[in-house]
């Protein structure tokens, strides 16, 4: 199970050598290079005519040994590596890791740092969902929303660049707090973005939400009911669209989330359309959080007093946050030295991807692409 090269076949596909199994059954291979698998994902589908009878996801094409590397780096040295896992939402990866180590050290970041972290993480959530929306719509055939989404995402990335110098792999946070103070104009930029964004997201909704073709392509496709979702360990928007009200920001608040008012969007069918609606609504809620946070950033220090050399006492900690894609968890075992004994990452995409087989069973080939898109996976996270 630690070897992430192949997943076990979940459906009854014992032999994958033959290409023609019966009169109507064939095995179709999608990827690893494919315009719609969002990274190097290989999917083997067993087709019965037009319908998918079983599937197997073969991953590991992007495995870089991140967890092993962690055993040979100091805690601060490892921080930039976590950005590269979910490279679409780097800031939240950093948040999870820094908070996990802070828990291990028994400290907490100062209030100002926590609020700024919240703002940046919520902006990152919006950016991640925008990328998801653009690519998902593109797979289903809507050629225009992707450009609009990237235009909004550009604004967020500009804020990140002004803040920490990088757009994508930001390493925005440090263990114990923040390295950089917010730049002059940070609040204005954020407010301006949030005010523009409300209008923009309504525009995207007019393009897709009530569109007959969009509804026809997404309603009833890739249904995952609540019981299955919980049994498979699915988290994030996928879980909430299936009817389970579970969001770590409310259930186990971290950073500065308990100070703010926001809703957790939930739907009940668990099909692709519901996941779309949940993520659209989440973008709105993130905007709400940002606006509340930006009104009132407390003054004070941005870094806790933890010293330059970090030697956490021996012990272990598991800390998870609500990343845009689901529950991102870090299980860190310390043996008292400057380098962790073990860092295990619980990537949301990896576990959500296991629901793919359940969702794809009985679907048509043309829906497979929509289902892969709706789980919102990033292969960097799946393979680490």
């Amino acid at each position, binding site marked *: 199970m630690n070897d992430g090269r192949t997943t076990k076949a979940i459906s009854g596909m014992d032999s994958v050598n033959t290409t023609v199994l019966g009169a109507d059954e064939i095995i179709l291979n999608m990827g690893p290079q494919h315009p719609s698998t969002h990274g190097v994902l290989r999917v083997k589908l067993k087709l019965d005519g037009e319908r998918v009878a079983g599937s197997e996801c073969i991953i590991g094409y992007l495995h870089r040994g991140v967890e092993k590397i962690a055993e040979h780096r100091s805690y601060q040295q490892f921080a930039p590596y976590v950005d590269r896992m979910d490279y679409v939402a780097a800031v939240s990866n950093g948040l999870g890791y820094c908070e996990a180590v802070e828990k291990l050290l028994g400290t907490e970041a100062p209030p100002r740092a926590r609020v700024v972290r919240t703002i940046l993480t919520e902006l990152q959530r919006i950016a991640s969902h925008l990328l998801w929306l653009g690519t998902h719509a593109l797979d289903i055939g809507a050629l225009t929303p992707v450009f609009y989404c990237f235009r909004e995402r550009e604004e967020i990335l500009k804020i990140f660049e002004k803040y920490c110098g990088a757009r994508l792999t930001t390493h925005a946070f440090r263990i114990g707090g923040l390295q950089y103070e917010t730049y002059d104009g940070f609040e204005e930029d954020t407010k301006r973005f949030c005010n523009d964004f409300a209008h923009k997201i309504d525009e995207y909704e007019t393009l897709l939400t009530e569109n007959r073709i969009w509804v*026809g392509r997404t309603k009833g496709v890739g249904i995952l009911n609540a019981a299955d979702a919980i049994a498979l360990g699915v988290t994030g928007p996928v879980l909430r669209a299936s009817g389970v009200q579970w969001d770590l920001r409310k259930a186990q608040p971290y950073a500065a989330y308990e100070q703010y008012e926001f809703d957790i969007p939930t739907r009940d069918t668990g099909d692709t359309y519901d996941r779309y609606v949940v993520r659209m609504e989440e973008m709105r809620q993130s905007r709400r959080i940002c606006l509340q946070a930006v009104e009132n950033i407390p003054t004070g220090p941005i870094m806790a007093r933890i010293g330059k050399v970090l030697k956490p006492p021996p012990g272990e900690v598991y800390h998870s946050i609500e990343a845009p894609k689901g529950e991102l968890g870090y299980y860190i075992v310390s043996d008292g030295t400057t380098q962790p004994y073990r860092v295990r990452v619980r990537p949301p995409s990896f576990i959500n991807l296991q629901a793919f087989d359940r969702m794809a069973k009985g679907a*048509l080939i043309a829906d497979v692409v929509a289902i892969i898109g709706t789980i919102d996976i990033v292969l960097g996270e799946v393979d680490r």
Partner: protein
Amino acid sequence: MGHLIPPSILPYVLPVLYAVVIVAVLPLLAGYIVLMERKVMADMQARLGPMRVGPHGLLQPIADAVKLLLKEDIIPDKADKLMFWFAPLVSVTMALLAYSALAIGPAFQIADLNIGLLFILAISSLGIYGIVLGGWASNSHYSLLGALRSAAQLVSYETAAGLALISVLLLAGSLSMKDIVQAQSDQGVWFAFSVPFGFFIYLVGSIAETNRAPFDLPEAESELVAGYMTEYSGFRWSLYFLAEYANMIIVAGIATTLFLGGWLRPGARYHEHIPGTAIEWLDALPALLTLGVALYSLSLAPKQPVKIQKIVMLLVAALCLMVAGVLAGALFAPPAVLQGIHGAFWFMAKVFAYIYAFLWIRFTFPRYRFDQLMRLGWRFLIPLALVNVIGVGVAIVLRQQWAWGPIVSLIPTTLGTLGVAMLLAKDDAPVAEAQTADGE
């Protein structure tokens, strides 16, 4: 001039000349429609589109054509060579052949067949062989499936579009393209306004017939089944491409002739003159528009970064000036010439407007899944088209028996078809027919 040419050949000179013009101009026109598509796409996606090759990308089609001609001609190993060579040929030939019955202006028609419309439909239906044989010749399971799906889609939507055309034929009373435009001229109102449902059905049917989004599943890159064109590259592929865009123009030409008044000037009854002259405002419009384009190009010329782009921009401005000159000169010519030249202008303007609608729809809507596509064609469009035809029949009875006016008689038709459409649309709600019950 009639004295120089022996009388036995005289009737053939003009049609042959027109045919040569069409065959020569069409590839260029198709190329520029591709450029138009890229620019319109870019505009809708908040970006600029091709800007480098020629000023504002105006030489892009030429660059693309040269590239395609110079590409290596790859034939898959086990492909059926005869069919592989033959299939794109069929597509292009049929696409070009359909132009022989199209009337671009009152004087610009290769052959005024009295079955003109049926001829174009027949030739369009022959174009299916290009797709099917191309898919077969590629010797790939998925190319073949994609080709057969494409063909099935074409056949289904051709039926719906044909039925929509029939409703117009009933009103026009003739299959000849010229007579249909004449009927609209007599009526004073274009058929798009008097039979709007016919227009709508034809619009949707024509989008599906040319394999354009939202009906382009057989061709889309992100789908699993590769399209029939996959194994073709270089010149052969450009033949398919030319056939597709030529088909688009033909379909737009049919829609223009039947629904949008052909070469009739919009506002044909509006005869306000420019004070002091005998020229009507609307007649002066084409020349003024082209002059405006010419001046705009002239103003853009100094701003181009590279010298060759400046030169091309000036050439474009010169070309537009020439066209404006011809259009303006026609104002002072006898009415037949005026109608001929301006008719061609209005026809092309309407064709481009229709194609713009195609592009607009392509970049706004997602793609239909194949079964949803077929369901839409057979369970919504064809019944609606049938109801429309019956409704038009009722309108004709109203006209003949009770002497209702040409437009008034069609109001019950439109209302009835609207009612049926709403019923069918509700019945056809996007239901979760997609998945069989899971639970294994």
